[in-house]
């Protein structure tokens, strides 16, 4: 039986500088058989290991049907991610995964889709947006809502423009502090919902961002009549093993690493927003 703790060697095929602190690594397993056997769902994550430094859980941003490589968008915030920021094309790292439950994409087919994110580019849902865009005919209306604190925090402006140009697709952006050059809405993400077009009875919403922001959006969606299990969110907790063994990611009875990180609201509402959980 294989050892689920043991990483495989992966090679950095491409490194993209998104902002001075955010970068994307495109990776391939060096063992061709392992690469071929690897598959994931949008919303799942890998554990990335930097030699001698440590391991971190990072969500996968690429398309699941890209056979050539898979990609991670990473913000350099901690010891390991700052180290990963320095790796170059051709360098080797360790990767194990994928872990967790991803987004309910099969369930979203034939329905309106809302993707609402707060904070930075929110990599866990970029994979969902790209997934829907590539298979546009399988879904109904698509609303992409993104709230940022400062206008300068918005990465991937170009992608938002491309998405906005697609049929049946709305892109709504808001910044708490937009400034004079900011072409979009001023204020909190919730103001964007006035313009979002969706049928509350036939929509799947996928949320990612700070828990306060997600709770505000959930309250709003519920008030519009969306059922609790049509609202999905990606949770974040300390994760060290990814296997449901190490205990750090528990929120009540849920292990975020294996029961999540994507949960429907009904599964987590008991403790969502309760300080200390």
């Amino acid at each position, binding site marked *: *039986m294989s*050892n*689920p*703790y*043991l*990483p*495989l*060697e992966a090679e950095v095929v491409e490194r993209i500088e998104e902002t001075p602190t955010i970068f994307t690594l495109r990776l391939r397993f*060096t063992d061709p058989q392992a690469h071929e056997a690897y598959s994931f769902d949008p919303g799942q994550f890998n554990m990335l*290991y930097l*030699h*001698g*430094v*440590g*391991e971190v859980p990072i969500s996968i941003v690429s398309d699941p049907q890209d056979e050539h490589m898979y990609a991670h968008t990473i913000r350099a*915030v*901690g010891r390991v991610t700052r180290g990963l920021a320095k790796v170059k094309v*051709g*360098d*080797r*790292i*360790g990767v194990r995964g994928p872990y967790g439950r991803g987004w309910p994409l099969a369930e979203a087919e034939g329905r309106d889709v809302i993707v609402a994110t707060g904070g930075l580019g929110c990599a866990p849902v970029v994979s969902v947006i790209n997934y829907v865009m590539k298979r546009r005919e399988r879904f109904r209306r698509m609303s992409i809502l993104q709230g940022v604190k400062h206008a300068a925090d918005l990465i991937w402006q170009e992608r938002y423009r491309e998405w906005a140009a697609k049929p049946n697709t709305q892109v709504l952006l808001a910044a708490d502090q937009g400034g004079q050059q900011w072409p979009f809405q001023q204020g909190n993400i919730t103001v964007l919902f006035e313009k979002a077009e969706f049928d509350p009875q036939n929509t799947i919403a996928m949320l990612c961002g700070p828990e306060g922001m997600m709770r505000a959006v959930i309250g709003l969606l519920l008030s519009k009549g969306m059922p609790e299990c049509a609202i999905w969110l990606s949770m*974040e*907790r*300390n994760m*060290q*093993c990814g*296997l*449901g*063994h*190490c*205990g*750090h990611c*528990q929120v*009540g*009875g*849920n*292990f975020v690493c*294996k029961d999540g990180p994507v949960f429907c609201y009904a599964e987590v509402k*008991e*403790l969502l927003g*309760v*300080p*200390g*959980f």
Partner: protein
Amino acid sequence: MPDYLPRDQFQRLLDALVAEGYQLLGPQLREGALQFAPVHAVDDFPKGVREAQAPGQYRLHHDAGERLFAWATGPQGLKPLLFAPREVLWRAEKDEAGHLQFRESLPEPPPTAVIGVRACDLAAATIQDQLFLARPKADPYYRARRAALFLVGVDCAQPADTCFCASTGDGPTCDHGYDIAMSELADGFLLRGSSERGEKVLQSLALAAADDGQRAEAEGQQRRAVEMQQRALVGRNLRETLFERLQHPRWDAVAARCLSCGNCTAVCPTCFCHKEGDDADLGGGESARVREWDSCFTEGHSYIHGIVVRGERKFRYRQWLSHKLGSWHDQFGRSGCVGCGRCITWCPVGIDITEEANAICAGENA
């Protein structure tokens, strides 16, 4: 029907286990406490040792005559033998070209018989099995150690004052999880097997069946061992009540006494949290991935890039108790407490889990 082994023949059991290829671990006095350590002969066992346990107290004294198992629980049961306090998971070697090679570092424990395992610790091992052996991502380190152990349980005839296994349903009599279980009587032992390999060892001893008087003596002992227990939890499933009462003032009261030291999680036979880290050699060529026991009472346990989910002590104690007696039911279908009482004994300020849980859940299931 149990077999009877006269006290002066106890060595025969040890010899039979050795003949089957097992190394022996038994209770030994180490640093003032009873711990599992290598044993060879009956003389190695803690004859006559009895213990006095109370909140924040553990003392041993010699007044139990010929008995070898007149004590209840040392600070550790089986946990460190199965889930190592610190171990290397794998090593990563980086060559001059920058290529990485990962080598797993699986333990290769010799077949080992542990003699004198309590019912609470057998139950705790079954609970840890649920976590570490769950497929498809079973833990190969735990699995290797588990497969190497042969467990000889012993029914508790002398529970400590801190014990409450009768209330959790996990003791004082061994009812599952052992290969052989013993009941220690005044003049000898009743032995019963529950696995094929356990039965095989018993057969090799060719003992006579216990008589009615001996069986009655054992039953009486076990009945008294239940009656002796003064502590009890107010119910076996406190999940709903605890989560309804997350704002109960008792959480603040217990946090004012709790030192957040993590002793309770270290001695708890079911606590499984562990952290991982890297031990890199100075040359930078090889790095070992190491895991060691962690505790939800540390600040680092709930850290996510700049945020500590449980910065306050109140939140840490509440996390531990609401998990152990509450959300454990969601995860594993039972409470995570086996009533061993170690967290009470080894708490430096003597916080008593039964007192805290019962105060918070008062009025429920009473």
